């Protein structure tokens, strides 16, 4: 029987990796992938608590999070394609059309 804190530590490591990816990478596609990592870390947390509390509501929430991730990936990649068609770049710090 693995204690729930082990799962939380794995989830925290994945979450921090995703945060580092979002904050430091320049490629927008990799930033989106890092967001997927973060959502995945949250899912691990939910499923671990769902198992250890004997309550399936956490798994339902994980299903909804996966749904949101799919919607977010579809729209985000659509935006990336539209942006690439207009500006011929994928670097996040060159997306400064609305910058002050």
């Amino acid at each position, binding site marked *: 029987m693995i204690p729930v804190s082990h799962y939380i530590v*794995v989830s925290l490591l994945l979450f921090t990796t995703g945060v580092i990816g979002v904050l430091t990478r320049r490629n927008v596609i990799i930033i989106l992938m890092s967001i997927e990592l973060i959502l995945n870390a949250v899912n691990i947390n939910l499923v671990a608590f769902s198992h250890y509390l004997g309550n399936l509501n956490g798994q339902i929430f994980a299903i909804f999070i996966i749904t949101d991730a799919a919607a977010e*990936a579809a729209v985000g990649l659509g935006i990336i394609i539209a942006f690439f068609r207009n500006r011929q770049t994928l670097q996040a710090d060159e997306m400064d059309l609305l910058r002050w």
Partner: protein
Amino acid sequence: MMDQVLFYFFAGLAVLSGVLVVTVRNAVHSAVFLITSLLATAGLYLTLNAEFLFVVQIILYVGGIMVLFIFVIMLVNLDVALHQVQFNRQTWVAGLLSIVLLTELLAALALARSGGPGMQLLPAPAATAASLGGNTEQIGMLLFQNYVIPFELASILLLVALVGAVVMGKKRI
């Protein structure tokens, strides 16, 4: 014993390939490592007796979302971006702050485990889900009884995302 070996294998694989997703240079390699990480997470779900989520993770994440990612990576040519600088100027500050965040979260977890003042976060597992049995059946019952309105809202969300993706993919926007 066996479940511990499986847990550490899947956890190590997930974290290692997660780190590689962020650090590797080529976006296609990054996507492949993300697939590995997601599959390892599916394995973690299996060690938690969440069989339905295991299958959903593989079909939806690996089979759906990641194919979309790789399709887009192939669609936009990244040959130019491959030779540019991959990390932005705030990298060191961001990395430092993320390490601080991780330390803080781990400290909170340690505090909760030690049962500090007002921190009884993790009660002993009263009834583990192993005794529930029939994971998919129970999720289906719960999803279509207690959570039927969020379920319908999720379908509307997917419809909106579908329309949004089509609009974004149009020739002139």
